[in-house]
């Protein structure tokens, strides 16, 4: 029957497609003896890991990671992932490290193992330079913007009574920090809550003199590298490497490149 022949042909087509497409795309499981580890990141997260104007992967985390890999004498591969899937990618073995401005929290500690913290961050409040807001309390009844599903949101809610005191009892949540900044500049929001690391990059891009950072913040946190709990040897090795880099000045070099206030 002709239909059977068509079926055969189509199954063949699907199989061939698969083969063509599957080549060179095998997800490697972490093998500590193996000479390669895969680092998962959202490659649009400036300034930790993102693309520069020629499309190259750059950022504080990228450079630090390359140095750590050198110390460990392994090859490191950068795998772009979707940030919301990071723990799943790690636990299914598609990546070996989560390293992208990954804040250390108690909930996350239950799912992954963290390296020693390598960067301090805080949730700061930014306003326009000419704003009359000086203290957190000044925000009462005002509009505050934030990036949805970020640690900024968590930090805001963890401060008792803060969110409730704002206009309409909530924050205005945008899908990206850029949009939150946009709202601030347009005058629709009076302030934004944001990662310090990210905010400083943004403000540097657009002219720091336009903004003001409140002295009070909504919480300090630290960035760490996420690993599978069972990769204990790798964790030990990485922590050792980080320690060495902080002692021999390489860390400072990278830090100054990305975070010095010029």
């Amino acid at each position: 029957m002709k239909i059977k022949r068509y079926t055969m042909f189509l199954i063949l087509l699907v199989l061939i497609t698969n083969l063509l497409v599957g080549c060179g795309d095998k997800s490697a499981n972490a093998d500590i003896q193996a000479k390669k580890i895969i680092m998962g990141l959202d490659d649009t997260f400036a300034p930790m890991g993102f693309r520069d104007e020629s499309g190259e992967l750059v950022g504080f985390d990228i450079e630090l990671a390359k140095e750590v890999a050198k110390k460990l004498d392994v090859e490191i591969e950068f795998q772009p992932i979707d940030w919301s899937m990071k723990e799943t990618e790690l636990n299914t073995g598609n990546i070996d490290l989560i390293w992208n401005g990954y804040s250390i929290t108690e909930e996350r500690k239950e799912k992954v193992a963290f390296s020693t913290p390598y960067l301090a961050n805080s949730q700061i409040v930014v306003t326009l330079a000419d704003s009359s807001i000086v203290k957190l309390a000044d925000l009462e009844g005002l509009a505050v913007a934030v990036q949805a599903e970020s640690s900024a949101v968590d930090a805001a809610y963890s401060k008792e009574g803060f969110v409730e005191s704002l206009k309409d009892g909530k924050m205005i949540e945008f899908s990206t920090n850029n949009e939150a900044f946009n709202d601030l500049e347009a005058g629709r929001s009076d302030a934004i809550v944001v990662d310090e690391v990210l905010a400083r990059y943004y403000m540097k891009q657009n002219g720091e003199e336009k903004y003001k950072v409140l002295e009070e913040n909504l919480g300090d946190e630290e960035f760490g590298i996420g690993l599978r709990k069972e990769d204990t040897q790798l964790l030990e090795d990485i922590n050792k490497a980080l320690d060495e880099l902080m002692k021999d000045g390489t860390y400072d070099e990278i830090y100054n490149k990305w975070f010095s206030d010029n």
Partner: protein
Amino acid sequence: MKVLKMLIPLTIEGLKITLGVFILTLAVSLPLSILVALMRRSKNKFLSKFIGIYIYIMRGTPLLLQLMFIYFGYHYIPHIGYALGRYQAIFIAFILNYTAYFAEIFRGGIGSIDIGQYEASKVLGISRSYTFSKIILPQVIKNVLPSIGNEVITLVKDTSLVYILGVSDILKAARAASNTYSTFTPFVFIGFVYLIIIAILTKLLDKIELKFNYYR
């Protein structure tokens, strides 16, 4: 503009993915869906029901979820052992999903053909398979073209879902440039890119519809 200097090469790379997923999905799922439609209409109750369940699942869950299950899910099912690569997972998910949608459209189209066509053919001694390919299918295609065209346009936009597996399409290119330069403009640019793709596609679909309008 510095932004465009970054955005354009990234967009071209992203287009390979966007168009690649689009073309490959269509190339496989369109013919496959005709087969599936026939199986759905089969007199074999078991086959018909089985295909019915497949279609129900594919249309009843978001493609995004299907992408996640197919790529990440193997880990949670014991004994499968074979991990799909990112691109394999994308193609399988898209093909499975779109085959289901197209199959339903074809099924409806095949069902709407007057039974007299089958009878005239039978009386003339023409086999069932020849009847289907020469008499029924051409008429079905003409009838379902608008619906198929709709799904094809949806497919272009669905390609942006590959982000969930970290794969870089044109929308991701916009996000990368946007975050690097802290500006919203790249999204506007990519919006236009989509519009251009859809404009070309629509023109193509119209031309095809016109070609099939040589009768009735």
